[in-house]
């Protein structure tokens, strides 16, 4: 038996160390959130606490309508996720399977938009929202989030669709599918790996978005969860416990969505379609 570790072992070891380093801030957040009230500060660089308590979460729920903000976030995020999935997959299907005048340039134009940093878009989007009367409405966030998410999703879907054997679609055509039917009944059911990537990414970016939400929403009752620490900074968020408890709450849905979707990320769904 050779004692030198296999490349695979080395890779796993390196990734484990990196993941550990990555986790430090998350663990600090959890440590502070779970710290019993009255304890001044966590030891060991913020990682060691004496005892565990949910009191900070209690404070957060007591002082702020967390659930209301959570529902706001969910309405905005889920709607934009659904819109991105539908719009991008339809567009990507056209890009992958049809040749139309200007199709190539349109696609590269789409790619170029990925290079724009979001802060550069804040002012134009604010102006647009103002013009269309979307300020301080859910749509004022849903539409920009969707628009910003579409290019990335189109790229993911297009490369995935291109790998689906054309003969599957031809078989469906002969079986009686329209083009829309093929998209609905063949392409989309086969594209769960792509859809899961798009859903996770879009959910994460929309749910965590802060700046656009800050400038768009005026009424507290419409604000998403990410704005909670800011709204209540005065009343109670000055204390680290409830503040970090709220931040913990903000991260939970993203983690849940990731765990739900990741089982679809496995490739090879088209295995067995063609030949043997």
């Amino acid at each position, binding site marked *: 038996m050779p004692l030198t570790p296999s490349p695979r072992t080395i890779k796993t070891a390196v990734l484990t160390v990196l993941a550990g380093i990555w986790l430090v801030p998350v663990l600090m957040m959890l440590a502070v959130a779970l710290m019993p009230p009255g304890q001044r500060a966590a030891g060991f660089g913020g990682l060691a606490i004496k005892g565990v308590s949910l009191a900070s979460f209690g404070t957060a729920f007591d002082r702020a309508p967390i659930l209301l903000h959570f529902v706001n976030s969910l309405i905005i995020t889920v709607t934009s996720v659904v819109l991105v999935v539908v719009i991008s997959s339809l567009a990507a299907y056209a890009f992958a399977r049809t040749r139309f005048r200007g199709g190539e340039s349109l696609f590269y134009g789409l790619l170029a938009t990925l290079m724009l940093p979001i802060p550069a878009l804040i002012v134009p989007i604010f102006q647009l929202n103002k013009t269309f009367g979307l300020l301080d409405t859910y749509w004022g966030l849903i539409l920009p989030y969707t628009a910003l998410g579409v290019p990335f999703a189109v790229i993911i879907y297009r490369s995935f669709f291109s790998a689906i054997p054309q003969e599957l679609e031809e*078989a469906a*055509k*002969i*079986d009686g599918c*329209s083009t829309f039917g093929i998209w609905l009944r063949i392409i989309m059911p086969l594209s769960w790996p792509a859809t899961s990537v798009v859903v996770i990414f879009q959910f994460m970016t929309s749910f965590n978005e802060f700046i656009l939400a800050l400038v768009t929403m005026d009424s507290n009752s419409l604000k998403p969860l990410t704005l909670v620490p800011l709204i209540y900074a005065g009343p109670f968020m000055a204390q680290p416990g409830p503040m970090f408890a709220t931040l913990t709450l903000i991260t939970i849905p993203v983690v849940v969505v990731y765990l739900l979707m990741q089982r679809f990320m496995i490739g090879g*769904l088209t*295995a*067995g379609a*063609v030949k*043997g």
Partner: protein
Amino acid sequence: MATVELRRVNKTFGTHQAIQGLDLSIANGEFVALVGPSGCGKSTTLRMIAGLEAVSGGAIVIGERDVSHLPARDRDIAMVFQSYALYPHMTVAENIGFGLKLRGTRRARVAELVDEAAETLQLKEVLGRKPKELSGGQRQRVAMGRAMVRHPQVFLFDEPLSNLDAKLRVHMRAQIKKLHRQLTTTTIYVTHDQTEAMTLADRIVVMNHGRIEQVGTPHELYGAPVSKFVAGFIGSPEMNFLDAVVEGAAETCDLTFADGSRLSLGPVHAGLPAGRPVTLGIRPEHLHLAGPADPPDGRLSGLVEVIEPLGADTLIHVVVAGRTLVARLAAKVAVEVGDRIELGVDRARAHLFDPASGLAL
């Protein structure tokens, strides 16, 4: 069931003319095989009939309907692809029933028809499985089931057996023949395997460079090929070809080969002028070890180069006039590599072709 008619059908891809003025009439219930070398346009022809490829010119008529510009789903045809193209996310039952479901057939009726097809194709045990959990042969049968279940007017097959191993291929060939006898649906079957075409088809269409070279029953193509191309394509092992020049009297058609050896074909081929170059074609099965019954001018002499025993018979490669001929001889033939042997020619079944045009004389 329906007739299928191609009327001066053309297809161009960019500047490349893949199909050139194809005319073909297929009778109701007929089984027609399209054969030809790779790239001759078999698949393109089939896909135009299916509606997967638009015609560039001409018309396609199924039954009484001109379907040239109808989408595939309105042509009432079914197709079995070389790759099978099964839907990976559906079970076998869903794969077979998909077309029925899309056409609004009641669920109970779909189940009934799927069951019936599964019964015929011995797929009952695997109805609940996904395609990736099937063997190659089972996938092939699912693809057939998907085509059968709708009882279409026309079946289209594009090399449906080429992904199976040799044994399974022979088995499925027999199954397809049996199915066609039961269902009597008009069938167009693309293959590059001439044995498949010979055994399955009522009529064979030999294609070359986007044109039809000859249409006929397997018997006609084997016995009376119109060109060297068809003669070489039909029959296995391939027909032997030898270049020669006609000599002497017009009644006997004496041929002289490159090395000066001669063969007299007799009165069957009479009428060619002396000095005319020809290509002689003889099938391996029309050569035999010369015996007392063979006249001296009806023999070819050559050196044995290779011996291939096949069990039922033996193939002997013999060098005659600088070319290697293949002869199909009896199983226990007493020859050795290096022997000089005399081959008797079944002269009535020899073919002559024009060397330039390749057409039969």
